[in-house]
């Protein structure tokens, strides 16, 4: 069965490469590699540049990962469904969960490998100036990849019961509400006596959603703070749990679907 999932992922990846999805990543990689060229125009000191470059680069990577996650998650299954390329595949002796898993693993590979490439480029271009390769950059970027993977799993789930545009909107909604930081909620919403209902709603919604803010550890590397391995481990476990949940939910819906 593992082998069949591998073949399904391979099919997905080959298709994505033929669709030139990887060129988008490469385009962004080039932008990141050219960062040092801006150093004079910033006319900041080297350490300030480093900070700005890390901040800018990582933000770019995180947006990219989120956009990719929503796009790939929403299209992974629905494009097969809409083009009906699903029929010959599901006629093969594979259970539907394996099909979903194959897609998800494919999306995962695209996300993680893109983020890896991009963060390596960022690290290199900063190292070119600062003469120091900061490996933590990659760790932070991988946390973004984790966040994006959870989001992608959610989007696959959404796409099993709604149209692609709606699934995309649900994904964006999940990303924003699930990503509200605790301090943001307590500061802006809970303290606001005018609308306790809104605060309740925000808290309640967030409670049942993945806490995306947990994955945003950019400050650690921008301000060179230490990153606890235990923390990294716990958010990885947290992310895997959510992914599993979303894939299981997707399977529940998908297995009952008339195609």
């Amino acid at each position, binding site marked *: 069965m593992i082998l069949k999932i591998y073949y*399904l992922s391979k099919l997905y990846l080959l298709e994505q490469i033929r*669709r030139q999805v990887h060129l988008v990543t490469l385009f962004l990689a080039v932008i990141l590699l050219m960062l040092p060229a801006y150093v004079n125009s910033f006319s900041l000191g080297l350490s300030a540049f480093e900070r700005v470059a890390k901040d800018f680069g990582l933000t770019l990577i995180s947006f990219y990962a989120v956009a990719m996650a929503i796009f790939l998650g929403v299209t992974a299954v629905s494009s097969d469904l809409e083009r009906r390329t699903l029929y010959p595949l599901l*006629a093969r*002796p*594979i259970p539907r969960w394996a099909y979903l898993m194959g897609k998800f693993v494919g999306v995962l590979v695209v996300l993680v490998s893109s983020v890896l490439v991009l963060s390596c480029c960022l690290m290199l271009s900063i190292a070119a100036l600062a003469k120091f390769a900061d490996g933590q950059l990659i760790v932070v970027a991988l946390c973004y990849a984790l966040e994006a993977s959870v989001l992608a799993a959610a989007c696959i789930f959404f796409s099993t019961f709604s149209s692609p545009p709606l699934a995309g909107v649900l994904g964006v909604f999940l990303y924003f509400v699930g990503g509200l930081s605790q301090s943001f909620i307590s500061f802006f919403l809970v303290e606001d006596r005018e609308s306790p209902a809104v605060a309740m709603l925000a808290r309640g919604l967030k409670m049942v959603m993945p806490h995306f803010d947990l994955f945003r550890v950019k400050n650690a590397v921008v301000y060179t703070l230490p990153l606890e391995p235990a923390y990294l481990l716990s958010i990885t476990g947290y992310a895997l749990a959510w992914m599993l949940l979303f894939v299981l939910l997707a399977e529940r819906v998908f297995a009952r679907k008339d*195609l």
Partner: protein
Amino acid sequence: MSDLALEVRELRKTYKTVGGTQEALRGLDLSVRKGQVYGYVGPNGAGKSTSIKILLGLVRPDSGTALVMGHPAGSVEARRLLGYLPEVAVYHEFMGAEELLVLHAALAGVSASDRLSRCRTALEMVGLGSRMKSRIREFSKGMKQRFGIAQALVADPPLLVLDELTSGLDPIAQLELKELILSLKERGITIFFSSHMMSEVETVCDSIGIIHQGKLRAEGTLQDLLSIENRVAIHFRGPTDELAELNPQPAKAGEQVITVEQAGTDAALDRIRQAGGSILTVAPAKRHLEDVLHQLVTAGEAA
């Protein structure tokens, strides 16, 4: 072990649609014996594709049972023994034909060492031998259909379920396909296919099922269905009013045709001559599958 490749009992399916519901199957029964070539015909919207999708597990029935080679339809075991050609031929169009077929073979459980040769044989069988490296998107409609047939054959399954087998194929390809079906049949493979090409169904099928409005209306061999009795068709030109009791039907270009029992041929010919008509041809009356289908459909709609 039963000798039925497909066994469908009392299958019902109602789709939910925008405006309400659409009943697609209303108690469908089917039995296809192993080794048979079975033609599945019926008008558009009769429920052919719906029932085939249920056999594949792509659609869930509301009630009834369906067994594929003795396994519940849609189970992995059932799908392992079955090659499927979908009605609409769409495949991952960015993939090369051979490349995609190898992946299909792998998913179907063909061992790694056999895959490539199996795929090449399958592509050659459907006449795509010279286009193995082409991407699917570069194929014409008929070529995609051929690819679909190759994809159904690739794992060498004992049962083929082919929806709209001849759709988009040129006349030569249809002839070749007929040969292919007969050679597969010789190897003992069961073939269940739906088609709108009655001539093809007539020539290759051992058994034919006619479905209309979600129910099987007739089933049997071609002979059973056509019930070729000893009737004779007489084409003639001449007055029709005086021959009204023979019930003449207009045929092409001012000709009339009457159909009579063989024993009454002489009498009928005499009557036509007496009335001043001239005989054009006298031939055994032949019914076609189309006629049977038409008759069943009009009868079904009247009921």
